């Protein structure tokens, strides 16, 4: 298919762009296969706006006489308005944008066409390999092994080709366990707590069904993570009733008779369609122009968004607490093990593992616990909060995770190497990107699409010094401790950087950030100067002594 067929009017002049907190600008609008480009060439204020079609969540057109107006709502939650003279032009442009922003074939997406304008220092596709992770692990314990049982994605289609499992469990047993777990997602290692040797595993629900089916290999596998005489916790992210109902559909939960060394805790985390509705309501509240304070607070409350944040953080803290304080191993799962499970395991690592609070470490966490672990990004991020089309599998699962990280970051502002922009950038790229990183629903799909060969990795772009500097937190000081966030309502705030980003004035906050950076920068410069002088003095003094 040629994009040109979809573009009936590639260019319109005298278009006026409206954005909140900006003066309206007049300029030229161009449509290309993947971008909407608006450029104004006014002398005092030349600017260009490039918008990926895939970033467009919904589009609305209105007419007053022959002047058409298009309101574009983006997945990054920004809203822009374009006034386009000429009814035909406007209609053409609107229908082109509509068609181009809803292409259904992945291979037509921009990452397959994008050619980087920067020098690739390090190929992001091979930066974070599980093999490296395992090497680190091997230096502290020999209880685990790397298994290639899923080499052809034949045992579990949503798992990566290699996984880390207890050493004592052979591939044959893994195949059997896979048959006993939803979608073949058998328990694998998610995190190893070096401090006390406890492990966090993740999986999907066991397929016990109504007649209480059991699987000896499954029991053996998860027991292999326990020290003799110790017990572990199964954190089930469903309420008990839901877990019980799941039995009727062949699912279920670990029965205590068969897993006597495990204690099950049900810590409810909301499922995807509810989350999507909550997301939509929250964004609606943030865009509400009504004048009234009560209305804002009740809409914020009614969206339930912060309730979900609180639930999620609480579950993650609980998992971390089991590992660090109770000295117990933990197995986390919900139903499929691709959403709430990953939220809990990845957040628990943020709390427990200082490495995950560095830029590299956080990237590795996203790769390991989200991309390789088979979170279906393409399904979940197909639509954002403005879309009019019917929901299918959309849900802001990853966004909720990022927001929880932000909440912890807010409580420990000096313990993270990255800043808020880094998290916002990941949110944007998960929903629309020039990079292939978040395409596909799992490693198997990515391999079939040949993403590493055909597209550029987000990490290749991010991990360059000139880019990284924008994402660095000037206040960072490595903190080797476990960080326990407060989950009280008074401690949780709306993530303004995402939800109010386009409808609050940001200049003063940006200035404050600049000020913080400058204070630290100046300090470091002085430190370097003083050190250099000290060295110089010391040299001169010893020279003097020699001369004596």
């Amino acid at each position: 298919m040629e994009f040109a067929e979809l573009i009936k009017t590639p260019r319109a002049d005298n278009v006026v762009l409206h954005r909140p907190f900006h003066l309206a600008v007049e300029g030229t609008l161009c449509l290309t296969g993947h971008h909407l480009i608006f450029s104004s060439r006014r002398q005092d204020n030349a600017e260009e706006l490039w918008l990926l079609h895939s970033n467009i969540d919904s589009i609305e057109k209105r007419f007053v006489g022959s002047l058409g107006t298009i309101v574009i709502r983006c997945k990054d939650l920004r809203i822009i308005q374009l006034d386009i003279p000429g009814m035909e032009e406007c209609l053409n442009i609107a229908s082109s944008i509509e068609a181009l922003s809803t292409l259904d074939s992945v291979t037509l997406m921009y990452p397959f066409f994008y050619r980087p304008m920067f020098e690739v220092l390090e190929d992001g596709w091979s930066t974070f390999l599980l093999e490296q992770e395992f090497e680190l692990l091997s230096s502290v314990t020999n209880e685990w092994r790397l298994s290639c049982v899923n080499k052809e994605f034949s045992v579990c289609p949503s798992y990566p080709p290699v996984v880390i499992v207890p050493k004592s469990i052979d591939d044959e047993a893994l195949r059997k366990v896979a048959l006993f777990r939803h979608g073949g997602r058998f328990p694998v290692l998610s995190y190893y707590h070096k401090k006390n040797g406890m492990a966090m595993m993740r999986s999907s629900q066991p397929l016990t069904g109504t007649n209480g089916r059991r699987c000896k290999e499954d029991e053996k596998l998860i027991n292999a993570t326990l020290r003799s005489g110790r017990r572990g916790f199964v954190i089930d992210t469903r309420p008990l009733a839901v877990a019980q109902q799941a039995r009727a559909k062949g699912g279920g939960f670990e029965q205590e008779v068969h897993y006597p060394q495990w204690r099950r805790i049900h810590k409810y985390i909301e499922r995807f369609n509810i989350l999507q509705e909550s997301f939509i309501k929250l964004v609606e509240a943030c865009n509400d122009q009504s004048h009234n304070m009560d209305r804002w607070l009740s809409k914020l409350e009614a969206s339930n968004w912060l309730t979900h944040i609180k639930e999620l953080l609480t579950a993650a803290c609980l998992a971390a607490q089991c590992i660090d304080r109770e000295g117990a191993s933990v197995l986390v799962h919900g139903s499929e093990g691709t959403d709430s499970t990953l939220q809990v395991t990845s957040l628990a690592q943020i709390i427990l593992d200082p490495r995950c609070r560095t830029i590299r470490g956080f990237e590795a966490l996203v790769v390991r616990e989200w991309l390789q672990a088979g979170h279906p990004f393409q399904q979940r991020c197909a639509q954002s909060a403005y879309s009019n089309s019917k929901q299918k599998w959309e849900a802001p699962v990853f966004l909720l995770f990022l927001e929880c990280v932000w909440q912890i970051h807010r409580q420990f502002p000096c313990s993270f190497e990255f800043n808020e922009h880094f998290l916002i950038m990941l949110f944007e790229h998960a929903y629309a990107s020039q990079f292939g990183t978040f395409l596909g629903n799992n490693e198997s799909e990515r391999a079939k699409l040949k993403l590493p060969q055909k597209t550029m990795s987000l990490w290749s772009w991010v991990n360059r010094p000139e880019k990284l500097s924008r994402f660095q937190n000037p206040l960072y000081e490595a903190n080797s401790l476990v960080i326990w966030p407060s989950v009280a309502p008074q401690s949780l705030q709306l993530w303004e950087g995402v939800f109010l980003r386009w409808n609050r004035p940001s200049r003063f906050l940006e200035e404050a950030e600049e000020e913080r950076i400058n204070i630290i920068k100046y300090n470091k410069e002085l430190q370097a100067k003083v050190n250099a002088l000290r060295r110089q003095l010391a040299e001169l003094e010893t020279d003097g002594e020699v001369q004596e």
Partner: protein
Amino acid sequence: VLHSQIASIEKQATTATGCPLLIRCKNFQVIHLVIPQERDCHDVYISLIRLARPVKYEELYCFSFNPKLDKEEREQGWKLVDLNEEYNRMGVPNNYWQISDVNRDYGVCDSYPTEVYVPKSATAHIIVGSSKFRSRRRFPALSYYCKGNNASICRSSQPLSGFSARCLEDEQMLQAIRKANPGSDFIYVVDTRPKLNAMANRAAGKGYENEDNYSNIKFQFIGIENIHVMRNSLQKMLEVCELKSPSMSDFLWGLENSGWLKHIKAIMDAGIFIAKAVAEEGVSVLVHCSDGWDRTAQVCSVASLLLDPYYRTMKGFMVLIEKDWVSFGHKFNHRYGNLDGDPKEISPVIDQFIECVWQLMEQFPCAFEFNERFLIHIQHHIYSCQFGNFLCNSQKERRELKIKERTYSLWAHLWKNRADYLNPLYRSDHSQTQGTLHPQIAPCNFLYKFWSGMYNRFEKGLHPRQSVTDYLMAVKEETQQLEEELEVLQERLANLQKSQSGNNKVKSKQQDQNKQFGLYTSNNSLANTPQEYSNDLKSFPSRSPSQGDEDSALILTQDNLKSSDPDLSANSDQESGVEDLSCRSPSGGGCLPSEDSGKDSDEAVFLAG
């Protein structure tokens, strides 16, 4: 805890362990005491009730508080804030404004200061005539003068207009205010009350200005509720803050239901309106409410703060409170219940102003020289009665009590410890510290946030565990030392080079070469413990593996979280020893013993679930 901080004492039902006493403080601390003997408890209760409600000023702490300063230092302290100097700074007296001695012996208005600035064309006859037409004789007087364009903010109480009464002198007074601003042909009269309240006042012979009787005024209502509504609103919000492990919905619903943020926004909006009239339209404004000492003080001071960067400095903020609140007879004693009095007079009027400042600090992080701690400590001392500044209801009463001779000034104390109160992001040459601040007006409701630093001040576990402000201040302090060392080193280097080229053997061995830097690195760690995310963990060890029905005890509901046994918090404290590192606690300059006593005892319960 100072007796003066006690807001209420409640005796609760006796339990097996003893008799619980619940003490709520005016600085939002809540203390639970359990006293083993009921008799003792009753005695304590009776004593506290008496001690918390002194009947004479002489009983208050400031008359016995002695910070070991000599007489001269004390007098110096009182001179730190000088209102004459402040009016001079504003640019009055000048061609349009003069100081009037009409209230010399508080003869005209006993709640006004002796020195009042009025328009030059307002004669004593006009002032006295106008004062007779105003509630409690609080005639229009200057609050803020804008040098740049001659526009001014004046304040008064409501006119005694009833349904039809007029007063020539009052009309002349307003005319005089307009004439003092030759650039503008009208003035705004802002009544900060809801229209309904103002209309109801007419029946009592009070009310508001009739536009027809006054030439060239534009009349405007801005609905800020009265002190009773505000008192109840705060009460409701504090109930929300006190909830044990509230859900997000409980909290947000309670916050909304209290209406507190709505009231804060109303005060801000009024201030923004006035600042805009003065700065952008160049129009003078007369502000009043009923008596002109609560809402009027709030609104005038918010507007001044927006208009003039000086009030956003530490010194300027002290001056502002002294000018708009202390000197113009805000009834500190009645509003903050320093002496035993009518509980219906108590209302968090200045608390709301202080919160408005905090909300502005959140929106303009570089605009204020002081930090949040400064505001919290001022709030604390408005209630503490440790310093004489906020005693009594008027200047007249304070003079009669000889406050300045017998007590110390808070401002001197804060000034002495100013290093603790600095905002590291403040630079006097920064754009946010210049000119008028323009906060977003509607519909930015979301910019107004719950201030947990104030209302949950003693729940340390709720606040960010690392303070950016303290961190940056430590960095800046280090930077300063580095600058000094750099200078010394450069000098030594120059000397050394000179002396070596002259083959001189003089060597300097200064000790400060070994000065250790990096002082902030270790200090910035955190006191941090896990909270009760689930009480299920506790019962685990006692369960035998094969025991009973697996499903029954495992469900984690809000209910069994709430019934957590009292041991839990102790338990988590014990655990916390493992990783506890001292946290950079706000160092409030010694005289806030209550600062640390709030400890984390309640933390675990708050955070459960």
